[in-house]
């Protein structure tokens, strides 16, 4: 037990040293650092190691390497131009036939214009609604970060979180544990979007909090950044999902992948 506490300290110290702790954890770590001589000494040693490694002489690209690569590429080029080039050729053969172009285009443009303008109206309306949903979800995330804990039920065991949702909400999502993919299950909370209570699963990713809010289908929003938090959204057969965090959009994308891959397997319960 003691060993694992220490390992955790070790990880946190490294993450702090690398600037990968979220602001709240960083402040907490600095507070500990100030009061703990042993920790401070270990941290200094880490910094000292970093200085030493970073001051190693940098290897320079040898002269001529770039030229060698360029000529290797040139040698490679004729061999591959054939393949993708072929595919686009036949299209050009059809060109002389574009005689009746203007009339068809006119008709198409009229229809197209009508479709566009009506769908713009619909889109605008939907866009407003989506914005409200996205804002409410981000607000839930921020509130979670400000609270002593970002969740109502704390557990890294999905068999605790899932029943808790089931007992509090009419609809409850799958709660996969994605620790193997780098997203550690922390717990769950209930957020309110519009007037409806919805389930939010809380994960931790390299000390960053990730909130995954589950909404009824059809409420997905566009991917965006709100108040400095990245928002990503997708849907499956049951729910629309909105994930909010201060991690990068790419990390959110891999979260979506991990979650989507993990959920169908748990369909049974």
């Amino acid at each position, binding site marked *: 037990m003691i060993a694992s506490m*220490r*390992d955790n300290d*070790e*990880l946190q*110290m*490294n*993450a702090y040293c*690398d*600037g*990968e702790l979220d602001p709240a954890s960083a402040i907490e770590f600095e507070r500990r650092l100030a009061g703990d*001589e*042993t920790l*401070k*000494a*270990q941290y*200094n*040693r*880490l910094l*000292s*190691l*970093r200085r*030493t*490694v*970073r*001051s*190693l*002489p*940098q*290897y*320079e*690209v*040898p002269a001529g*390497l*770039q030229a*060698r*690569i360029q000529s*290797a*590429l040139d040698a*490679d080029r004729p061999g*591959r131009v054939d393949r*993708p080039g072929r595919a686009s050729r036949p299209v050009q053969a059809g060109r002389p036939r574009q005689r009746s172009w203007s009339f068809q285009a006119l008709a198409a443009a009229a229809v197209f214009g009508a479709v566009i303008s009506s769908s713009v109206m619909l889109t605008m309306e939907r866009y407003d609604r989506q914005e409200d949903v996205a804002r409410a979800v981000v607000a839930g995330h921020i509130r979670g970060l400000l609270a002593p804990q970002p969740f109502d039920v704390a557990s890294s065991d999905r068999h605790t979180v899932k029943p808790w949702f089931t007992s509090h909400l009419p609809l409850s999502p799958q709660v996969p544990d994605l*620790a*193997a*993919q*780098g997203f*550690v299950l922390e717990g769950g909370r209930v957020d309110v979007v519009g007037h409806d209570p919805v389930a939010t699963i809380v994960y931790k*990713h*390299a000390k960053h909090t990730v909130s995954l809010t589950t909404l009824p289908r059809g409420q997905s929003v566009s991917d965006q950044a709100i108040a400095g938090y990245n928002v990503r959204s997708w849907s499956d057969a049951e729910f629309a999902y909105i994930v909010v965090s201060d*991690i*990068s959009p*790419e*990390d959110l994308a891999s979260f979506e992948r991990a979650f989507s891959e993990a959920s169908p397997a748990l369909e049974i319960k």
Partner: protein
Amino acid sequence: MFDEVFLPHMAEAYRLAQWLTGNAYDAEDVVQDAALRAFRGIKSFGAVNARAWSLTIVRNTAYSWLLKNKSKAVVFTDDLSPAEQQELEHEGLHGARVETPEEIALFKADSEDVQRALAQLPPHFREVIVLREINQLNYRDIAEITNVPIGTVMSRLSRSRQLLITLLGDRKS
């Protein structure tokens, strides 16, 4: 396209290759091979992170090169049994921990010592240090390049640093 994606990261690519293969001559071959692979695979580049994409190719090329040419010298840590891995980790961690704060506060090592210590690390441990300290990538990019979860990057970095500190500490005494 290729010129914009791969070429700007050539210097970094070369540095990484040299650290992974251990010498300048092999590094040149690896970078050249990686450039060809990148050139042929440029269509699969998803326009997300050119640097990470390029370094991923270099890293993978370096590993296949190592396996082909020096397979005996390459021990991938994931091949170790959990017990062995534990031992490696704990020797590194707890061996170093007994010292008093004054003793561990600072340590000195010249660049040759550090280079030797780095070369002694198992490849998966060495590469996280190189990617983090030499290429100065963040955890996310390192995870992408080495194709492991961020949690694994974190624990490998922490262990590698402990191992280095132990190795450098031993050398001094």
